[in-house]
């Protein structure tokens, strides 16, 4: 990813994603897969704990 702040990054990611199946198990109109993952302190966490709230989910890497 790299240019952390830019709209360009979002646009490029969208282009790449639109090119074919890059969103993996994320599908518009469908529930996000039920995932329980460790948070950055090792505790169990899940998008499902935010049910009842609107969520903006960032899938990212620090590089």
């Amino acid at each position, binding site marked *: 990813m790299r240019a952390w702040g830019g709209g360009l990054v979002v646009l490029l990611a969208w282009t790449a994603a639109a090119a074919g199946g890059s969103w993996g198990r994320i599908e518009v109109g*469908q529930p996000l897969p039920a995932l329980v993952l460790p948070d950055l302190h090792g505790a169990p966490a899940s998008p499902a704990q*935010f049910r009842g*709230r609107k969520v903006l*989910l*960032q*899938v990212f890497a620090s*590089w």
Partner: protein
Amino acid sequence: MPGWHDATLADQRAGRIAVLGIVQEQHPDRARLFMQWKRMDWPVLADPLNLLEVKVVPLTVLLDEAGIVRAVNPSPEEYRAFVSAEPVAHGPAERPRRPDFAEFEERAAGGDASARRALADVLALWGGPRALSRAIELYAALVQEAPQDGMTHFRLGTSYRLRYDSPEARPGDFEHAVEHWARALELDPNQYIWRRRVQQYGPRLDKPYPFYDWVAEARAEIAARGEHPVPLQIEPAGAELARPAKAFAADVSPPGEPDPEGKIHRDRGLVRAEAVVVPPRARPGETVRVHLLFRPDPEQDGHWNNEAGDMLVWLAPPPGWSVDRRLHVVGRAREPVSDELRAVEIEARVPEDARPGGALVQGYALYYVCEGRSGTCLYRRRDFQVPVRVAP
């Protein structure tokens, strides 16, 4: 990502939206440091195994109150409309729990491949270092049965690297990690999460950017704010910090070989040596990054002697091949004796006219090593040969 953070800050503070992250990298604690640096305090989940199966990052996803995906990489207008929309009906929030290993074991006992992979996933993610060997065993059996399953190759590679970075490390772990990541990528060359994992440790010609050059800047800024930077479990080094290059720069300096006549006595096993070639195969004209890893053998009670001098590593590439540097000087720890891993990374270029098959990059290391913490200290030479596979 900080762009979205800033754009949604007012909505976050007003409770109109929650921001959540899922990080797709091998060492999630580095994301903690990144979050601290950028002053982003929303919860982040670690997905080093790529359970989400995304192929690229970053992705921005809008989830409604029922957890339904409403948009991926929305425009600012779509985001605004989403935030303003009436809430949808939804069930109660779920409290996440640690997976119950016994439940997964029971399902896997039926022999179903997806149940066995799910067991391997929870062991690798939740079982700690001691469960990694079992996860590796399960993934390895699955790739034996389905050699074209790139995702399982990737998770197997990731588990090997997790074990390599743990107290349970075994010789060959890093090499196996690279081998399985590379195999996964061969099966799906469009999977950029997997590609980045190889590039993280690979040659400069193949790098899109230096992966963790931001760490030093982040620490300096955090410290200047009067905060303590989050400590990292594994310090980024070598290839993880190396800058991309557009051309290979071969070492053309005159030979300054430290032991040309081979007079230094050979080490008979006080130090273990390993080599990992990234990527594991290269075509003519391409480069590879060779990680040379040296560690005193605990079974022999070997220790580095840091009071005498630096470790030297000399490289002798095969005819027609070139390396970026032939002589490497490896720094020492401050204490008189130590047993840390010493790593040297070199890059080698495969000649344009190389034939498919392989070649041996040869060399040796010279080091001061002790037999036990208070035993005899010696100056020793360790010869090595690193096979590099040349693809057609």
